[in-house]
């Protein structure tokens, strides 16, 4: 029995070569995602078996080259150098062979057997290109496997090639690039290297890198080689000599040599049968990138994204929410029963926990649709077109064309969510722009902020509803952009900025499988990383809201009220035949009985089913059942009437307790303590408490406000709007405005904060993203409120004034460009200037 051999293989390739598709084709469902240690670059691994070999395939980040200029390149290269996989599978776009070979050569130089996967053969064929695979294999000294990964073609051949390549072992002869005039210099360095025993890296590769003055290579030498100084000095010397003799730096020469070699091989192995005609992608681009149609189509796409995911997604939640509510009821049924005025702590805790988690889970249908649509956008190739259209605008604010999608997702109009928004920042290649985008996405209009806006607008801006909503929706953009610019000029100044150069790949029709897979992956990430932490925070907030709680005195007060209600009830039904069934504890039992009955009957439309449920409950306790459904029974009806009253009284008492509890809690004290500061922004302690609780999830703001503004004794149920209006007599439109402004700028909810940490990789940015909006929010709110008061402006006037200021700031900062050309700082490297 031949033992199972384990092989580690790496998957490398340029972006848009179909690498992910090849990865999925080879590994199927057996893959998992992690991070490369210490960085925010995703590391995907998968497995497949072939013959007696089990192959672990690591998907390296897609890179155009293997220099040390970008994080992805460094990660890919480090993996190849230190993990030394047995095989490298290089996925290549067959219709773009020349450019792809540029990376191939660099992979070959690592002296690991390479299997070249000629992907997208169908596209090459369509373009009239025919490739001589065997000849290519011969020239490159590699295995060449044509494939169409999208259609699962080439899977077996590729797997076989990987196994064969891994077994090449001793007979493997690495590919040798002829660098012409550079060769003598390389030999000298290689000789010096051979004097150092036990070097873990291919000597020739190192020699090339040293001549190119590659920073990472120098670091490797310093770390691993005894007496590195000598070697490094030699390299510097040689570099100077070559440059002086050939009027070109070595790295320019090596790049050019690779390019020429690629051209030669292309010439030899690829035949173009017809002149490239205008492709379908070209035709689509004529519209998609058109001067006037382009932006219109972009708006259309954004609208479709919004409409399908948010609006339709919300409609879906109408079906999924009952499921979640069902789970909650299940939990409620399993926990100890509630009491008349108080519930056991464990019950309150678990239910609160469930409610908080449910609120988040309710987003899943929306996220699923959203992530699917984003995957479609990504796979189709439209994203670079978006960047192409909007880069000019975003660039002025230190952002990038690819900041478009994150900002849209965050809610560029109304109703986005910062979580997928921050997630989408992954694609931004420029580190500075990426961080800037991550930091401003939470300022956009997330879904959860909207209920508060609606509440306040309907109370305080009733005649200008549309205008006020429009203001809220757009002002965030005019605040986010200047903030981005300021961040770029100050805090983010030292971050690397990258060149824009963006490939515009041909359009692809996304496959359902790939889209769904990506959507599921991301939803799972959301569940795993975010829901867990939010759940933990929910518990913390619970404690802060429950304790220290009511004083003994107050508790007694409510008990007294409860007793009064109960004795009223008993008084009314004295002498009634049913009275004996509801004495003492049985009253509570009846209340629970009714609640359980209602729960079971909820949503039941079928007469048969309803009757069955009724029969069951009747059997359980005929007396109770008659009381809650008296039908024609006069006595039962009497009890029913009194019962309804006591239930109502109970609800009222519980509501009042709830409200008072918040006052008496830690959170409440905190809210009160903050009042002296927040009063400049027009916030009283109630608003503070609501805002504090919103930290867990912004949705809670309205609910908490609802509890804080108690119903009045008289009258029918008033909406929160009317209650707030009545009870906050000092509150004017100006207060409302500042509250909304603060909400707009409010620090991201915990879930988003976690996402920020995940995407930026550093806790400091996560903390910064929490603190700076708070500072901004309080400052702006206070300015608007106090300023507005001082100038005697109405809410509406203050709104317009503030809006005007924001737009002015945006335009002003857009025109401000301290360094005339951003690109100069990366067009020249410091050492070059001295050479």
């Amino acid at each position, binding site marked *: 029995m031949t033992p199972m051999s384990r092989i580690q293989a790496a998957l490398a390739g340029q972006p848009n070569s179909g690498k992910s598709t090849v990865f999925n084709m080879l590994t199927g469902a057996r893959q998992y995602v992690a991070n490369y240690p210490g960085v925010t670059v995703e590391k995907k691994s998968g497995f497949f078996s072939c013959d007696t070999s089990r192959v672990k395939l690591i998907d390296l980040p897609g890179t155009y080259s293997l220099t040390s200029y970008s994080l992805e390149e460094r990660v890919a290269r480090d993996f190849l150098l230190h993990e030394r996989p047995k095989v490298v599978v290089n996925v290549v776009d067959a219709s773009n062979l020349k450019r792809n070979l540029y990376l191939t050569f660099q992979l070959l130089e690592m002296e690991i057997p390479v299997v070249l996967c000629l992907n997208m053969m169908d596209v090459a064929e369509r373009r009239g290109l025919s490739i001589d695979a065997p000849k290519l294999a011969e020239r490159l000294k590699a295995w060449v496997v044509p494939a169409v990964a999208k259609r699962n073609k080439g899977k077996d051949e590729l797997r076989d090639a990987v196994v064969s390549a891994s077994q090449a072992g001793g007979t493997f002869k690495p590919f040798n690039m002829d660098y012409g005039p550079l060769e003598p210099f390389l030999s000298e360095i290689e000789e010096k290297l051979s004097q150092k025993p036990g070097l873990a890296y291919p000597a020739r590769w190192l020699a090339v890198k040293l001549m190119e003055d590659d920073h990472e290579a120098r670091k490797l030498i310093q770390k691993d080689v005894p007496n590195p100084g000598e070697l490094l000095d030699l390299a510097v010397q040689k570099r100077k000599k070559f440059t002086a003799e050939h009027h070109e730096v070595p790295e320019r020469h090596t790049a050019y040599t690779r390019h020429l070699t690629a051209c030669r091989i292309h010439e030899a192995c690829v035949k173009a049968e017809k002149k490239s005609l205008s492709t379908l992608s070209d035709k689509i681009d004529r519209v998609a990138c058109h*001067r*006037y149609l382009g*932006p*219109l189509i972009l*708006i259309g796409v954004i609208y479709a994204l919004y409409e399908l995911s948010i*609006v339709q997604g*919300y409609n879906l*939640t*109408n079906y999924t*929410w*009952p499921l979640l*509510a069902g789970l909650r009821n299940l939990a409620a049924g399993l926990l100890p029963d509630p009491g008349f005025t108080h519930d056991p702590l464990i019950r309150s805790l678990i239910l609160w926990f469930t*409610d908080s988690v*449910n*609120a988040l889970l*309710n987003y899943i249908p929306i996220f699923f649709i959203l992530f699917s649509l984003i995957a479609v956008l990504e796979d189709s190739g439209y994203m670079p077109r978006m960047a192409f259209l909007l880069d000019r605008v975003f660039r002025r604010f230190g952002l990038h064309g690819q900041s478009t999608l994150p900002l849209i997702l965050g809610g560029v*109009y*109304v*109703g986005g969510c910062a979580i997928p928004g921050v997630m989408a920042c992954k694609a931004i290649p420029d580190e500075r722009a990426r961080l800037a985008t991550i930091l401003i996405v939470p300022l956009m209009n997330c*879904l959860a902020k*909207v*209920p508060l*806006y*609606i509440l306040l607008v309907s109370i305080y801006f009733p005649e200008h*509803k*549309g*205008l006020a*909503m*429009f203001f809220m*929706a*757009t002002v965030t953009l005019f605040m986010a952009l200047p903030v981005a610019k300021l961040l770029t000029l100050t805090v983010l100044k030292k971050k690397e900025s990258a060149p824009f150069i963006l490939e515009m790949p041909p359009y692809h029709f996304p496959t359902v499988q790939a889209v769904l897979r990506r959507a599921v992956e991301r939803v799972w990430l959301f569940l795993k990383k975010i829901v867990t932490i939010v759940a933990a925070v929910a518990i913390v907030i619970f404690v802060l809201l429950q304790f220290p709680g009511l004083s003994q005195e107050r508790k007694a007060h409510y008990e007294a009220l409860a007793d009064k209600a109960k004795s009223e009830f008993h008084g009314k039904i004295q002498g009634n035949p049913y009275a004996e069934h509801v004495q003492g504890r049985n009253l509570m039992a009846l209340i629970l009985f009714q609640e359980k009955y*209602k729960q079971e*009957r*909820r*949503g*039941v*439309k*079928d*007469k048969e089913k*309803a009757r069955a449920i009724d029969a069951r409950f009747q059997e359980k306790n005929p007396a109770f059942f008659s009381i809650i*459904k008296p*039908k024609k029974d006069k006595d039962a*009806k009497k009890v*029913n009437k009194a019962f309804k009253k006591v239930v109502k009284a109970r*609800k*009222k008492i519980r*509501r009042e307790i709830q409200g008072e509890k918040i006052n008496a809690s830690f959170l409440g004290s905190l809210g009160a303590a903050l009042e002296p500061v927040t009063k400049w922004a027009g916030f009283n302690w109630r608003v503070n408490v609501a805002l504090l609780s919103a930290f867990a999830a912004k*949705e*809670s703001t*309205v*609910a908490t406000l*609802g509890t804080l503004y108690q*119903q009045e004794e008289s009258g*029918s*149920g*008033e*909406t*929160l*709007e*009317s209650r707030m209006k009545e009870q906050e007599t000092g509150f004017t439109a100006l207060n409302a405005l500042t509250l909304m402004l603060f909400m707009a700028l409010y620090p991201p909810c915990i879930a988003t904060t976690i996402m920020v940490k995940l995407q930026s990789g550093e806790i400091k940015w996560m903390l910064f993203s929490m603190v700076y909006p708070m500072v901004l929010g309080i400052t702006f709110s206070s300015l608007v409120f106090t300023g507005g008061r001082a100038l005697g402006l109405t809410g509406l006037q203050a709104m317009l004034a503030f809006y005007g200021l924001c737009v002015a700031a945006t335009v002003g900062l857009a025109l401000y460009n301290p360094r005339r050309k951003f690109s100069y700082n990366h067009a020249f490297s410091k050492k070059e200037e001295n050479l």
Partner: protein
Amino acid sequence: MRKIFITMALLAFGLVFAGQAPAHTPMCDCFDNGDDTVTCEGGFSDGSSAAGVVMHVMDSSGKALLQGKMNQDSEFTFEKPDGPYKVKFDAGEGHKIEINGEDIVE
């Protein structure tokens, strides 16, 4: 000039959608009390109460029969109409629920 055109288009587009902001999922369940009255209970997924939300009871052709509001317990009780009817929970755009009287079983 082109830039201005694009900006105006975007803003105009914005105005159209000013009102349409979905927020939290609405809920409404109705029960037949067995004594010719029906009680509907309402709420929202984020825990906010539905007190004050407008309730409409209409006949099958949509003609209004009764109107009222959810009380402070988020409940609305009304006399069951003769014949087919519909109940509507109206908390604003995107937050409406319509329930068929037929489905409210005794």
